[in-house]
């Protein structure tokens, strides 16, 4: 029997009212401002911008507040908002070689020009809870030194000069855009990188870790990791030239991978690439490992049949908004579907019981 039902408006309205109250929390405690989130929870803001795929720290902070700190919910809000914006155009590719680096390290070359710059890192902290942060207090000013004014060269350029690493020749191709056309396979590297740049950090971390543990081993070194500010330029038709539209913090990781050569390529180092909006080196490193694993076909490597090499598996499951949408929809009313399942099970049980009775009678 099919029964259409309607209702729940009052319950929904009251649930949302309670949600607003819970979001605010204890009114004895000062309300958190969006500016505070933007300024003091910056790495959460960066993650929401990266996976929401929209660089706007104010909006990301607002989304975090609205989502009560649930970052995937916040990313959902940003994704929904960005669909309402008209697209003014596409920028010129950012020049990460001209980045004003806050941090720049290499695990392969100790004495690279520009040096090893640690930046505001958690590395080398003892990971002991700092109870001093529970009290208000002045923070001592960070020390300063003579600033570097010239651009910091990319470290893999040094291997490039010797021809020991696979080249990345610039092109002016228009890249595919998965926000405009549905993601289809086979996906070329630019499309894969767009997908990975907005993919879930945890999903990429798990996949990247799996390649390290042996599921598609690519033996990666972090050739270079840099975090800093880049200028964003776009050609403006009404002006007839390109102007700087803004600046953004990005994290870039280049891995250098052992490669013994294949039928098509000589023995050389190969590269994996990670580029993420905001500061997120865990994600940038993960992205570059997964990018490298996905390149097996173009480098003529064997298909080891591991998850990180499977573009369909990686690209179709890395988007946390698609994933959470499909996953969580099963909690919504499925009364009719379930009713039919229930009827079916009852019928099968009846038939099984009748068959058993017949069998007993026959014996």
């Amino acid at each position, binding site marked *: 029997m099919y029964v259409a039902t309607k209702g729940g408006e009052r319950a929904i309205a009251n649930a949302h009212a309670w949600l607003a109250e819970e979001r605010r929390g204890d009114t004895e405690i000062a309300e958190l401002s969006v500016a505070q989130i933007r300024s003091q929870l910056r790495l959460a803001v960066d993650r929401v911008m*990266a996976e929401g*795929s*929209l*660089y*706007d720290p*104010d*909006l990301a902070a607002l989304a975090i507040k609205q989502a009560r700190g649930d970052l995937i919910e916040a990313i959902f809000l940003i994704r929904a908002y960005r669909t309402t*914006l*008209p*697209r*003014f155009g*596409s920028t010129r*590719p*950012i020049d990460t*070689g001209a980045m*004003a*680096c*806050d*941090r720049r390290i290499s695990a392969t070359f*100790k*004495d690279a020009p520009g*040096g*090893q*710059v*640690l930046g*505001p890192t958690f590395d080398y902290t003892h990971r002991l809870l700092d109870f001093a942060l529970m009290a208000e207090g002045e923070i001592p000013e960070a*020390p*300063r*030194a*003579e*600033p*570097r004014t010239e651009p910091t060269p990319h470290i893999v350029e040094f291997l490039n000069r010797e021809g020991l690493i696979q080249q*990345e*020749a*610039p*092109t002016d*191709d228009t890249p*595919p855009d*998965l*926000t405009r056309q549905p993601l289809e396979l086979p996906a070329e*590297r*630019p*499309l894969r*990188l*767009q997908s990975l*740049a*907005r993919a879930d950090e945890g999903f990429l971390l798990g996949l990247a870790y799996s390649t390290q543990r042996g599921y598609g081993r690519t033996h990666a070194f972090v050739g270079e990791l840099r975090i800093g*500010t880049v200028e*964003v330029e776009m050609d403006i038709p009404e002006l*007839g*030239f390109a*102007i*700087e*539209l*803004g600046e953004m913090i*990005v994290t870039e990781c*280049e891995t250098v991978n052992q490669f013994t050569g294949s039928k098509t390529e000589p023995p050389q180092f190969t590269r994996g*690439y990670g*580029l993420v*909006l905001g500061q997120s080196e865990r994600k940038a490193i993960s992205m570059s490992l997964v990018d490298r694993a996905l390149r097996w076909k173009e480098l003529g490597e064997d298909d080891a049949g591991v998850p990180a090499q499977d573009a369909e598996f990686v690209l179709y499951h890395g988007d946390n908004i698609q994933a959470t949408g499909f996953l969580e929809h099963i909690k919504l009313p499925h009364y009719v579907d379930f009713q039919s399942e229930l009827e079916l099970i009852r019928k099968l049980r009846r038939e099984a019981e009748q068959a058993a009775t017949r069998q007993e009678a026959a014996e």
Partner: protein
Amino acid sequence: MTAQIPDPDRRAWLGLLATAPAGRLKALWAAAGLDPDVTLLRAPEIGAVMVRGRTGGTGAPFNLGEMTVARCSVRLPGGAVGHGYVQGRDRDAARLAATIDALMQTDAAPDLRRAVLDPLAAERAKAKEARAAKAAATKVEFFTLVRGED
């Protein structure tokens, strides 16, 4: 108005206006005491641009993610046309940027440069330098320990 050729000066002030903190832009403008009668050619609007990167930093372009931008175009009574693009979603800042771009093509340019653009440029350079100085202080100085072989 002169032909629209790549103009390094104009390119520089447009970039400065695009990246200026909206609050500073508005405060400096207010202090400049100008209030031209502008006609809107394109009403202030908020949108996004798709920011691109390159594979391996130098290779083929790919779409990295979007960035919010506000823009506006105005015309002054004298005919000068200004285009304003600013990062973020501040329509008033976009309108201001367009107005300043138009005024910079008139006799008001020297005063405006002194009152708005020069301070913005100085503040931007100072902030950039402060960050670079903090980064420089975290640069590792390696030293080699003497080994006992010789």
